[in-house]
């Protein structure tokens, strides 16, 4: 945390002549519907000179320029995806805090679900294998046949 703030601030400082602040009142659009769309878009766009801050949160001058740009496009009648396409064409995919779903991000998006599925498969596999192997491997040393073992298990489970 300390390190990130340090570096974020050094970068900020370099770009910072007049201390500004995230979203100034004069940026806000008069049409509340458009403004709401602008805010929603802003939280998904990265302030590229900051560390992991959206342009909605950042007080860097670049973030302000981007906020104004997003609003200009919206006023000009762009749809949300057109605004995003426009920004990506200008600044690259780096500007998106939510990466696009594509080949190069496939593993990124799939990691969580894949881990879950792999986990489920592993559990099912292990449960099956142990269910089969249990009688021979673990119980055999005590000298009980699997049938005796079953009986014993029933007795044990009763209490």
């Amino acid at each position: 945390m300390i390190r990130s703030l340090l570096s974020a601030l050094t970068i900020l400082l370099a770009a910072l002549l007049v201390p500004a602040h995230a979203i100034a009142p004069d940026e806000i659009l008069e049409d509340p519907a458009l403004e709401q769309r602008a805010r929603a878009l802003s939280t998904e766009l990265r302030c590229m000179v900051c560390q992991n801050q959206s342009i909605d949160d950042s007080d860097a001058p670049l973030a302000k320029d981007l906020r104004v740009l997003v609003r200009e496009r919206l006023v000009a009648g762009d749809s949300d995806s057109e605004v995003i396409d426009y920004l990506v064409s200008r600044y690259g995919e780096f500007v998106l805090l939510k990466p696009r779903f594509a080949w190069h991000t496939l593993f990124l998006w799939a990691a969580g679900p894949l881990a879950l599925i792999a986990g489920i498969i592993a559990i099912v596999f292990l449960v099956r294998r142990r269910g089969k192997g249990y009688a021979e491997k673990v119980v055999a040393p005590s000298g009980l046949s699997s049938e005796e073992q079953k009986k014993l298990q029933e007795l044990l489970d009763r209490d």
Partner: protein
Amino acid sequence: MVIEFGHFALVLAFILTLVQSVVPIWGALTGDTRLMATASPVAQAQFILVLVSFIVLTGAYLNSDFSVVNVWENSHSAKPLLYKFTGVWGNHEGSMLLWVLILVFFSALVGLFGGNLPADLRATTLSVQSWVTAGFVLFILATSNPFNRIPNPPIEGNDLNPILQDIGLAIHPPLLYVGYVGFSIVFSFAVAALILGRTDAAWARWVRPWTLLAWCFLTLGIAMGSYWAYYELGWGGWWFWDPVENASFMPWLAGTALLHSAIVMEKREALKVWTVLLAISTFSLSLLGAFLVRSGVLTSVHAFATDPARGVFILVLLCIFIGGSLALYAWRAPMLKQGGLFAPISREGGLVLNNLFLTAATAAVLVGTLYPLVLDALTGEKISVGEPFFNLTFGPLMVPLLMAVPFGPVLSWKRGDLLAATQRLYVALGLALLVVLFTFWLWGMERVLAPLGIGLAVWVMAGAVSEIVTRVKFFEIGLKRGFSRLAGLPGSAWGTAVAHFGVGVTVLGIVTATAFEYERIETMRAGDTVTVSDYQVTFDGAAPRRGPNYTEDVGHFTIRKGGVTVAELDPSKRFYTARQMPTTEAGIYTTGFSQVYLSLGESRGDGAMDVRVYFKPLITLIWIGCVIMAIGAVLSMADRRLRVGAPKPAAKRRRTSAVPAE
């Protein structure tokens, strides 16, 4: 001279870590008790030596000894005394020294309190712990020495980064480090078990209290950091999915899985192999966190490549410890004996489900954190992975887990009855549904997710309460006997219920503060009033003020509710002169669990100022819930069975006595 003494103590400590890395484990493997017996005194000597060097560095900070590079870079004679003290770990070198101090502190603790462990296990554990310590002390001595001197000492220092001059940041790193490093002991235990090729009852009982201790501090550390970011960074966010935050969150997730799987291992001797793997993974993620934060790789892969000394050193440590322990695991884990069987629907089954989702969530966060770095390094393509991504991938994994939380503790061991468990939870379920309907009725269909989220939180909280109620059997045996049973419940039962309740509280805070926040952004002149929720916020004017090492513009605000003044706030914008750096100090009024949050923006001339005014409903519950979780961990640690010696496991006794009876 004193400074060199501190430096020398650290070098001596390094030599002792080398001794401890070899001698006790040699004794354990050859059965030589004299060699094993060296572990504990050497661990304590290490602790004393590192403590001496830490005290020397602290002394240099308190005396503003600018002949030390580290002090000159990070301190200032006018800095308040408290921040001279906390500045010791407010920088790379000092924080690494703190890290090592905590490592050897835990070694010394194991030496002191490990009397009831088998001698060879204790000796091996302390040797493994020393491998880790040796690596980090060498890292400090080779690349990050805080005792380096300047030939011609300057008269004044550069001051500490102003955003670190805050009481929150004073407490945050030590808490976090105790958490991170606490997992090192569990790691050393796991590796020792692999080396010795056995996990006996004593081993199983030792893992859980240490995990709980580390987890407790990590929880508090993360919560503290989150609250600090909330009030200090000035835009009212409390979690950013920043890689550095993720670095502390991943060990937390894995550690949470670990402390649950350790229950199964302790009670039923099952999941041993898995618990060993989790113990290794948890500390590996702590090490990964240290690498991410300390190497500078996050700022830029290329900056890392141009000044690689520190980063490469930690990367090598990381590869040795993670790779080595995983290789050892692959080789030795099949030798560990597996324990009790259980049906899928059972307490064990519930804990496996918990582990499944927590592990998947850890994987999602891990990949999300590393993916942009790896992609950049491999293809040069730059992408960002931020909050919207994590909300989409992490959130859906948490929802089923939270839905399952109340079921776990009411299922019985070995073979549970889902229907019977559900019956015990009828009240909680009914309450949650009522709350969902009520919120829908109150807010309409405009926010669909929020009422469901609140319902989920209530379900988890009410489930925790009904777990205690059903355990005590209040309704069957009457209140009086019920209360005496309540007092007699084991600490671990209370710990579970309290910690789960805390999870519900945090979820409630997250949902309400996110969904029902009010925000106003206005340019205000003296006398202007803005209304958020039920509160009228009036700007009375701003004035400049001087602090010890900064100047500030302070805005004065009066907050009224229904015309009655309830609070006066003075948010400010500071400017730290030594570092030429601005910061914001938010003004916060807490009412119940909710907060009114004020933050100053740009000045517009003729006394007008940009002001951001928020009403954040129930937001303090986010951190209160974390504190409740930590209290749960403490209750669980206080459990009697963790203090008495390890008895023979019930299953084994029963099996041996049952066989002759046949």
